[in-house]
Each structure stands twice: as C-alpha cells, then as structure tokens.
C-alpha cells in the first residue's frame, strides 16, 4: 500500500515536473519572440525613430598674425568677409543629423549644426525614392548640387577649410543650405551621367544677397559623369552653372552692389583604390564668376554716395591630392585666384588690386577608427594681396556618434 502510494506520488510528481518544464520552455519561447519582435504601444515606436547622429568638429588654431590682423584679413576685389577663426581653441560645431523614410515614397533629412552662437537649420529636405525613369526630386532647404565641395558637409572635407575659390565666390562654407527644389535625372546609359536643375531662393551673401529679389531667382544646372578604369580607378567630372540676381554688400566695406551673377564651375575627381588600406584621390575645381551691375559707395540715402558701373569677371582654381596608407592620410593642396581672368572694371577702368592671392596647404591625418579623425594642417596663406603672408597651423578633431551615415562618392 505504502509502495503504491509512493509510486503514485512519484508518477504525479514527474508528470507535474515535466509539464511544468514544458510550460517554462514555452513561456521562455514566447518571451523570446516578444523581445525579438518589439511589440506594445511604445515599444514599437522605438523602431520608427529616425536615425540620429552627431558630429563634433573642434580644432586648435595658431597663426603668425595677431587676432586683430586676422579679423581684418580679407581678399580685396573678391570679398570683405574675414574667416573669423580665433587663435587658440575653436568649436566649429556639433552637427546633428536626422534621417528616415517618411513613407514608401519619400526620405527626409535634416542637418542641424549647433554652434556657440546658436542653433541653425542648415538643411531640411525630402528626397523622392520611387519616381520612375531615373528621376529624383529634392525639396526644402538643401546644399546645391553645384560643384563638389559645395555639396559636402565641412566634416567630410579633406582639409579643415574650404579652398580660396569657394571662399572668394560663395563664402567659407560654400553656397550653404538654400531653399528650393532640385530635379535630377540618371538616364540608363552605358556610363554614369547625372543631370540636374534647381530653382533656388538665392540667399547666399556673396552670390546673391538675401534681398536680391522677391521669390526664387537663382537657377542652377549641373552634369556629373563618371567612368571606371579597371577595378580600382574612377573618374568623376562635370560642369556646373548658377545664375541669379545680386544685391550684396560683400565686395568692399561701405558698398552695395546690385546686378547679375553668373558662376561657372568644373569639377574633376580621380580616385585610385588598389587595396584595402591604400588609396589616392586627386581633386580639382575651377570656378569662374561674372558679375555686372552698379556699385554704390556710401549710404544709399546719403546724396554724397557715388554710383559706378562694375564688371567683375574673375576665376579661381584648387588642386589637391590625398594619399592614404592604412589609418594615415597625407594631403597637399594649392589654391589660387585670378589664374586666367582678373577683370575688376569700375566705371570702365580695370582696377589694380594688388598681388595674386594664393595658398599652399599640407595636412596629415590619423584615423584611429571610422568615427574619429585627427588632422594636423599647415597653410601658407598669401591671399590678402598686400604681401603680408600668414602661416597657419590647425590641429583638428572630428568625432561622430550615432547612426552610421553612408557617404557618397
């Protein structure tokens, strides 16, 4: 009797334990499933958050000139805007990037650089993903497809600063975000050929000025073609053009200029990537800017102010090369203004503006990982026309966290 009782007990115990075991297992399985799938009212929203990344751009700057000399250092005949870099530690920006698909038809991007002066909305635009026939529309505020460096964010540049022709014709950060609409077309051809047009509000301080005209008045057109040579070499090249109205006060202090602006560009990039750790990039852009109109010197309300006709037809070019060896990269750049054309014709008379502006730059980079870059840069700057050279030294650090942004070519 006792034995039977024990047996029954034992049997039921095993039964319970085995069913309990199964229960735990299935419960675990359900738990695994739910954690794998992220469900719930708020859990699911985590997956619909936009991708976020933050890039900090900070550098130490030293110059042979005093701060007051730097603050008044301009490029006469081109721009009266100094660089504004302080000797010592500088925090360029902490750039916040957000991006995500809006729906199956549009992707949305925003670039919000936070600087010590405040928060900017540098870019906020949509890009279509599902138009037929190789067409794509971009709209909102975005960096124009004009030229090469123009479309890149400063952290993606190959040197700390933009080349002279950018600074002279568009400003130290290029054309910057412009409000407007862009249509690009990639036809199905044997080679890569992208054609683009844009209608922009036209607010760049050097090309147009914020109050040049009511409504959009700047129009761009650009072509980018590319061919590969073997598995390791690629060439990208193409012309760009932008035209618009101008109402600017950036030619010289105390002046305003009204007229028309045309800017032509040609870009050429050669990339050689023979193996994993090695690579070479040669890049050049030629810019030619024409402006014709009237230059007023003095306050327009002042009857003593003078009005003269001004025709500017000037150009600039940079050539840069960068060689990568594993985590190290060395680079050199030469940039010069007035290489072929230096018309500055005031009331029919060509002006002598002084020496030809040029610079020479060398840089050494160390990239400990994909997300950190340390750059040491030296520049010999002879851009101020007065013969006063500047020797500049930068030690820059770029750091990125968050979503892994894919970089274009």
């Amino acid at each position, binding site marked *: 009797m006792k034995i039977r009782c024990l047996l029954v007990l034992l049997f039921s115990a095993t039964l319970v334990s085995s069913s309990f075991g199964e229960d735990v297992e299935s419960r675990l399985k359900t738990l695994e499933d739910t954690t794998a799938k992220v469900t719930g009212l708020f859990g699911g929203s985590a997956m619909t958050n936009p991708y976020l990344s933050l890039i900090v751009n900070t550098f130490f700057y030293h110059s042979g000139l005093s701060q007051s000399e730097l603050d008044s250092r301009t490029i006469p005949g081109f721009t009266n805007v100094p660089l504004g870099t302080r000797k010592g530690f500088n925090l360029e920006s902490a750039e916040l990037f957000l991006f995500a698909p809006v729906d199956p038809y549009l992707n949305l991007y925003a670039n919000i650089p936070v600087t010590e002066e405040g928060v900017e909305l540098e870019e906020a635009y949509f890009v279509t*993903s599902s138009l037929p026939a190789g067409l794509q529309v971009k709209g909102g505020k975005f960096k124009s497809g004009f030229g090469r460096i123009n479309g890149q964010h400063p952290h993606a540049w190959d040197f700390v600063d933009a080349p002279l022709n950018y600074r002279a014709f568009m400003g130290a950060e290029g054309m910057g975000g412009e409000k407007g609409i862009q249509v690009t077309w990639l036809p199905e051809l044997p080679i890569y050929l992208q054609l683009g047009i844009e209608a922009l509000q036209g607010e760049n301080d050097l090309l147009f000025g914020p109050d040049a005209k009511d409504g959009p008045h700047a129009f761009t057109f650009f072509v980018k073609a590319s061919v590969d040579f073997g598995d390791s070499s690629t060439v990208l090249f193409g012309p760009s053009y932008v035209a618009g109205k101008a109402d600017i006060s950036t030619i010289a202090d105390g002046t305003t200029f009204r007229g028309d602006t045309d800017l032509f560009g040609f870009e050429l990039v050669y990339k050689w990537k023979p*193996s994993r750790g090695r690579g070479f990039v040669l890049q050049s852009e030629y810019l030619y800017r024409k402006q014709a109109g009237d230059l007023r010197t003095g306050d327009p309300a002042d009857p003593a102010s003078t009005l003269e006709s001004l025709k500017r037809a000037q150009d600039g070019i940079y050539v840069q090369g960068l060689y990568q060896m594993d985590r190290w990269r060395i680079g050199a750049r030469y940039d010069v203004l007035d290489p072929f054309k230096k018309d500055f014709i005031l009331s029919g008379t060509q002006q002598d503006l002084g020496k030809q502006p040029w610079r020479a730059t060398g840089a050494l980079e160390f990239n400990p990982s994909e997300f950190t870059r340390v750059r040491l840069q030296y520049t010999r700057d002879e851009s101020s026309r007065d013969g006063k050279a500047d020797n500049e030294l930068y030690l820059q650090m770029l750091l990125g966290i968050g979503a892994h942004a894919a970089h274009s070519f």
Partner: protein
Amino acid sequence: MRKTAIVLIALLLSAPSAFAKVKVVATLPWIGSIAGKIGKEQVEIATLVKPNQDPHLVEARPSMILATRKADILMYNGLDLEIGYLPVLIESSRNPGIQPGKPGNFDCSHFVTALEKPVSVDRSMGDVHPLGNPHFHFSPARILSVAEGMAGALSVLDPSHADAYKTNLEAFREKVRAKQKEWSALPTKGRRFVAYHKLFEYLAADFGFTITAYVEPKPGIPPSAAYIERLIGTIRESRPNGILTTPIYGRKEVDFLAGKTGVRGIVIPHDVGATPGAQNWFTFMDQALSALVK
C-alpha cells in the same frame, strides 16, 4: 485597325519583360555566385564589390549607382555589413523596384539566424555589428536557406520561369548536401585556431572547431605592438592549429606571429574570387576547409 495597332504596341512593350533576363545586382561576390546557381541562364548578374575589396570599407562608386539603377533585384548581405554605402546606392539609384519593402530588395540575412547578436553594444567595443556577425556565407546550412529565398524572390519577379528556379534550387540543394558530407568528413572537429578578424565564426560553429583568440584586439581595430607581444606568449603556450587570416588584410601581422611562434599561418579566402581557385561558392568553401586541415 487601330485596335490591332494598340495590341501590337502593347505586345511590343511587354515583350522584353517576357524574354529578357532578370537583372540581378549582387553586392558581394558570394551572393552573385549563389544567384548564378539559382538563376542560371534566366539572370544577368552584376557584382558591385570586387573580391580584393574589404566589404566593410567600400565606397559607393557612381558606376555602382548606375548598375543599381538598372537592377530588377538588388541582393545584399544585410546585418549592416553594407551600411557604409548601400543606403546611398539605393537612394541614388532612383530605382523604385529595389527600395526597401519591394520584391526587388533582397536581404540575404532575412533567411538566416545570426550568430553573436550582442545583448548591448556601443562603439567602444570596436566595429561590432549590432545585428549579429554578418559573415554567414561560410555556413552551408544558411547558404541553403538564402538560396531558397532567392528562388522564391526570382519566381515572384519572373513567374514564367518559376519552374526553372525550382529545378535549379533542387540541383543546388543536392550539391550542397553531397558537399556537406565531404566537408564534414574533414578532420576539423576539436581543432583550435587564432583568427585575425571575427570572420570565421560560422565556419567554426558548423565544422566544430574553436577560435580561441583574435589578432585584432577589437573588431576593426588593428593590434598594437604590445598586444602582439602578449599574443605571442598566448600562442606559444596554447599551441593552436593555426592562425587564420584572409588575402586582403592581416597578412603582415599573421606572418609575423607565425614566424615568432612556429604556428602555421593560414590564408583563407574571405569571399568567392579572393584566391585564384575559389571561383564559385563551392570551390571557395573547398579552399577554406581544406586550408584548415592541410
């Protein structure tokens, strides 16, 4: 008359889709190789990443954008391996058919269970893939699942050849099974290796060997001299069966370690085409496994 003309035009317009090959764009060589086994003469394959390139560090060349523009289906590894260039390619391609969620967007990793999916991750750990180890092309069982997925996806895009894809898949399955027997017979079980990068985890899991240490202190971070010194000690003590690396990176460090410790350095192709004999996925696996037991 007018109706006939319309019908004729409609026929002419639809004709290419009935007879033309399915344009497959594969990011990596192994994906192109498997797609070729399943698609055979029904597909035309363009592979974006060359065998001598590191799949982690690829730049979106304009020619890749152009190829993607023309694709009927884009096949990629997934698990964020192509994160540095694929989003740009997909958007710049202006190809509605390959956008995420469309039948022409084929993520191979959707058909496999990933190893080493970290519970939590940040970049202080190096280049850890948050979705799991992405190098599953060394796993025959997983490749078979991917091939099944490919046959399904190609049948959706090109239903008129669904039977052919099914037949090709069957033939592929048979060959994988036969090969798997051959591979399993190799004496890989119980062996211990040191590896340069976290690339051979699926190979180890499927063929019963272990990777005891890595030459990279953290994924994607090259070793310092001090780290190499310590590793020499570890290797001398534990005497593994070999130090694994690939033709494109880690050769220098592994040769150095092999010279110092007397343990054999083993070069394993990281992908199809990376070594002269590895011209398709089967010969690639043959080479990888025979190198381990040589």
